[in-house]
């Protein structure tokens, strides 16, 4: 069972991808994309996990306490920031698409020309 967290990350990623493929609205599509991206948080954090270890914060614990890997946690922080900026930009594009084409349905947008 020690690979279960990685399998969970794969499952979340595929769920997000399914939502993107079958989406009927750009807002829904953006949310599904962020679901797909959240699988990378699960993957990063589960790679850095150490059995019976605490957070890598040594404010209240004696020195030398087992702690999980701080580097992947910092990478996850970057990941979250990138995810938020991507969501913000895509939602802005959605607003523009709605203004220009009057719809947020990707299928109807695809049939528009010019």
């Amino acid at each position, binding site marked *: 069972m020690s690979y279960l967290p990685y399998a969970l990350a794969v499952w979340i990623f595929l769920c997000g991808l399914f939502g993107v493929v079958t989406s009927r609205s750009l807002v829904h599509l953006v949310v599904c994309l962020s679901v797909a991206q959240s699988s990378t948080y699960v993957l990063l954090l589960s790679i*850095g996990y150490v059995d019976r270890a605490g957070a890598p914060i040594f404010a209240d614990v004696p020195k030398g306490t087992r702690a999980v*890997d*701080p580097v992947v946690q910092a990478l996850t922080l970057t990941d979250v920031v990138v995810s938020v900026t991507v969501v913000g*930009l895509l939602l802005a594009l959605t607003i523009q698409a709605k203004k220009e084409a009057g719809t947020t349905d990707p299928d109807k947008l695809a049939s528009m020309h010019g």
Partner: protein
Amino acid sequence: MSRFLRIALFAPSAAGLGALLLWSAAGLPDFGHYHHAYGRILNASAQSERHVTNVVGSVVFDYRGFDTLGEEFILFAAVMGLALLLREIDDRRPQPREQVDSDALRLLGVGLAAALLVLGLDVVAHGYLTPGGGFQGGVIVASAFLLLYLALGYRGFRVLTPRSGVDFVEGAGAGGYAVIGIASMLLGAAYLHNFGPLGTSGKLAAGGSIPFLNVASALEVSAAFVLLYTEFLEELAAVPVRA
């Protein structure tokens, strides 16, 4: 493409992709048996080297501070792009219905916003000691301003977050981070290398240049999010003034 056809195409390719990903996951170290040296070395030495207790904070603002510079500018560029997409050239005026009429709601909202602001500043200030930091605290600070929108309406929100001020804070945060890096070069070290007195571990005055980078990123993140909220709220609450 019809919906059925799309799902019919997606199902086998997703199954294939899932199988490949699971196969590659099987090559990863067992869950809970992490063997990389980098993290263990940092956990063992960051506290004595840098006098900070949050090792994640020291990774973000010191050991991998250069990554964070890139991260800050990703946020900066994305918010600029968003403003370019949404900002209209003509002036905008709040819609007449964009007002909060209930005094109780206003009072409660402003009180909660003040509490949230203090919480955000606390999370920023102790970022390198306890869980938190410039990014997390910056988002909380920006949420306090969003609460002000709920309490005071669009007009009040815009009065409290003047565009030139928010732009200045965002630029100062992103630019300040880069300038602190240059300061360590002037002192003869590598770009963004830690400098300054390390102080006492567990106290606010600790960590050399980490607190300064922490504050710079907090300024950048909070202003970027306030700008982001402003652009979206403008779409919602303001109408262009027709000349």
